[in-house]
């Protein structure tokens, strides 16, 4: 779900997650921790992180998978939510959370209705009403204040757009176009039922509302840009204190106004969640491996490459002493290099870049089989029905392309292009591993006569730079995962001008039309086929060069469970985690 290291604020988070991912990759194996002990209430769970702060805490602005999972599991209830399960199919199905059921679609999928559950309250005891959900949703429209979050509300709700492509509704702060929003999102007289009127049929709108961007926000407590400093909880925990930076902590304590009877989704086992910011990655690994004292109930998000040999027997199996607390799983992300088609308009040149790239070396550098499998598109096999092999490396480019690249074929393609061998620049967020990957890009493209210049960008500034058309170059390092298990959160986002992650600057009228058609296709099987074809089409047009279906390794302390990578967000299943009582 969502961007890998995406988000404009994502300094350390992205760097570290990307680094850890890049170094890793692995197999399967999920199990309960603590020797199969029964989950019990109480205790403190520790979340150790190298990041000095959360990317975002404001519900409408959160957009990294791990953060969505964490805050959704602890403080923000959403109308619907993903099931907790290690099984991909199950974990990508939704259950009712704040709503009484998973929603009712009428009007051919253009109108969606949810009824809010009785007993759901905010941390001050006031009930969560339709108005709060509507207000929360409206905040997304204030794009000058609420930055960084997903913008599905803007693209899906039935509110006209202005000439410059922005919505006619400017959010609750200016109030411009408020009546348009109030028409699109309506509440029943008792304040229990919320109705979303959409501009087009969205068969999976009830998946979209799992995002905290659709979570309720009480209007009276909204402080605009600074809402994330003191957000109002609707979940089983509330923020007691939050101090960013090295040595800082976020403490979540029980929200005594939360009524378990109103929430059968969250288990709320621990009494306290403590997030420890700014720890050295090596310290985190070491502490979890040792797992003494408080660290026995601690978790973290990645592993340094040097620890892989200590913890794992192979990319799919942990050593006996770590069995049950180390995972190595496919994550939701696809790694790729976006080719800026505005700057590289010639298809043959783009093909030459894809053909010349040494994907084998890139994968080895990222950790070999710990890092995942070769990708053939932007839709991953664990997406279920939307995935089908694109044949990118078998036939799409006219020949079978070896994993290590085919410089001779690339040279031929350049010769056919009618252009001179290009000079391109490769943008990437700087880290030691990424520097080596850049060296591989430079070297392998160089063998085909393409001059590639590396352009390392400070990780914290990365997306700010590459989303600026004036600063972005020809080849851009990226990764993306779906926001929910429908490629409607991949293909349109990556390959259409209205998408939020179109690093390739791709704008193909025919393609756009096909995307619009697929978006509103009510038959899921047919829709899946359409996404598969669009994925293949984009690969054929070499809009991106997919490199890897990522895998990731993580460990936890000895007394925490359940231990599995929750496929919904490629994260820990925060909402049902517990400390094993000794």
């Amino acid at each position, binding site marked *: 779900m969502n961007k890998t290291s995406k988000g404009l604020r994502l300094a350390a988070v992205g760097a570290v997650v990307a680094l850890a991912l890049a170094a890793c990759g692995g197999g399967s194996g999920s199990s309960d921790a603590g020797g199969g002990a029964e989950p019990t209430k109480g205790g403190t769970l520790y979340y150790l992180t190298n990041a000095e702060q959360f990317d975002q805490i404001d519900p409408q602005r959160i957009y990294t998978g791990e953060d969505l999972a964490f805050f959704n599991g602890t403080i923000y209830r959403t109308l619907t939510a993903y099931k907790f399960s290690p099984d991909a199919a199950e974990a990508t199905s939704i259950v009712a959370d704040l709503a009484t059921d998973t929603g009712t679609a009428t009007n051919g999928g253009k109108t969606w209705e949810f009824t809010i559950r009785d007993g759901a309250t905010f941390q001050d005891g006031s009930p969560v009403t339709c108005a709060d959900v509507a207000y929360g949703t409206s905040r997304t429209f204030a794009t000058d204040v609420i930055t960084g979050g997903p913008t599905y509300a803007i693209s899906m709700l039935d509110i006209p757009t202005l000439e410059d492509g922005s919505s006619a509704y400017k959010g609750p702060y200016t109030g411009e176009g408020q009546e348009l929003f109030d028409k699109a999102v309506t509440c029943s007289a008792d304040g229990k039922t919320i109705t979303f009127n959409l501009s087009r049929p969205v068969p999976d709108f009830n998946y979209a509302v799992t995002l905290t961007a659709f979570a309720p926000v009480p209007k009276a407590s909204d402080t605009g840009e600074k809402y994330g400093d003191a957000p109002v909880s609707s979940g089983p925990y509330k923020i007691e204190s939050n101090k*960013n*930076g090295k040595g800082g902590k976020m403490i979540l304590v029980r929200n005594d106004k939360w009524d378990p009877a109103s929430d059968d989704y969250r288990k709320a086992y621990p009494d306290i969640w403590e997030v420890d910011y700014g720890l050295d990655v*090596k*310290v985190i690994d070491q502490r979890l491996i040792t797992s003494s004292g408080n660290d026995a109930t601690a978790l973290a998000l990645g592993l340094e490459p040097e620890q892989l040999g200590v913890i794992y027997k192979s990319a799919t199996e942990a050593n006996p002493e770590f069995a049950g607390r180390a995972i190595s799983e496919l994550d939701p992300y696809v790694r790729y290099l976006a080719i800026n088609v505005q700057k590289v308009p010639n298809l043959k040149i783009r093909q030459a870049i894809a053909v010349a790239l040494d994907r084998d070396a890139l994968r080895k550098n990222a950790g070999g089989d710990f890092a995942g499998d070769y990708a053939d598109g932007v839709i991953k096999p664990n997406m279920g029905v939307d995935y089908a092999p694109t044949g990118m490396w078998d036939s799409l480019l006219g020949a079978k392309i070896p994993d290590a690249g085919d410089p001779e074929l690339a040279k031929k393609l350049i010769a056919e292009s009618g252009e001179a061998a290009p000079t391109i620049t490769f943008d990437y967020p700087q880290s030691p591993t990424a520097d080596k990957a850049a060296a591989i890009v430079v070297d392998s493209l160089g063998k085909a006569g393409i001059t590639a210049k590396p352009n390392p960008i*400070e990780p914290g500034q990365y*997306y*700010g730079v590459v989303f600026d058309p004036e600063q972005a170059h020809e080849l851009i390092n990226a990764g993306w995962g779906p926001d929910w298990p429908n490629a409607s959160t991949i293909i349109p986002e990556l390959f259409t001008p209205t998408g939020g992650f179109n690093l390739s600057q791709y704008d193909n009228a025919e393609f756009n039309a096909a995307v619009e058609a697929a978006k509103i296709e009510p038959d899921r099987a047919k829709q899946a086929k359409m996404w598969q074809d669009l994925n293949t089409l984009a690969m054929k047009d070499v809009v991106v060069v997919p490199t890897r279906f990522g895998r990731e390794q993580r460990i936890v302390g000895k007394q925490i469970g359940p231990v599995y990578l929750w496929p919904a967000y490629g994260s820990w299943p925060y909402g049902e985690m517990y400390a094993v009582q000794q």
Partner: protein
Amino acid sequence: MVILLLLLTLVVFILFSLLPADPARLTCGKGCTPAVLEANRHKLGLDLPVIQQYWEFMKGLFVGRIYAADSPDPVVCNAPCLGYSFKRGEEVLVLIKDRLPATIWLALGAFILWLAAGISVGVYAALRRGRWQDKTVMGISLAGYSLPSFFLGLMAIFFIVIRLQLLPYPSYVSPFENPIQFFQTMLLPWIVLAILYAAFYMRLTRNQMLEVLGEDYIRTARAKGLPERIVIRKHALRAGLTPIVTAAGLDLAGLLGGAIITESIFSLPGLGSLAVNSVNDADLPVIVGITLVTATFIIVANLIVDLLYAVIDPRVRLVS
């Protein structure tokens, strides 16, 4: 001195207004339109000419300032306002105050270690001039200041923490919270920094002592039959102290600005690591703030050192 400080703020301001990453764009998000960008720029005060930005900044220092005063959502930064980091949503002064303790502990601990080691070993070497002890000391000192700090730091972690496991991985806590972990964390960075600096102080002390010991008044003192201990301490060391005090004051001030490398190797939450992170994030207000604070330390230390001169060495008259 005040002029120097003023000049400093101006230079820092001009230097950093050249930075490429547009802070307005960085806070803008992906749905960024030119209008939003302009609004952001206005909020950050970046739409003003550099000189006026500077004026706003100086005003902030003395009377505080309000960012985006005309928006529904202004940010108040009270005097002395060193700026406001929109990236971190915090006043720069608060950020710096948060990070200062770790830096001060690091600097003070290392300072005490290196002065004690540097001066005592230096005196010892001077008294054994030309003998093997002296040569050994000078050899060690050479090695000490030839070792790049990051190599020394990484070696310390490798041997002490990873191989011998004498200490846990450094992980900073406040000494008031957990004194044991504090010392376990600080020990290596203290020693690493102290080795680098002590090497230099050994040489400095030794050379000073050699020079002073050759003076007539020392010979006189010895001829008077004063015990050697007293000759060394009361007469020689005191006279030779002036350049040591100068160097020590300036070095300490420099360290208070954050030992960037040592802090990042041992992952200490000090000013140095804040500085590196801010560079990474293009968090301009924080970079400007740290630069100013650090430079102020050095300039003030210069002044204090000058004053101390007069106390230590009555021959020096203060001329201003």
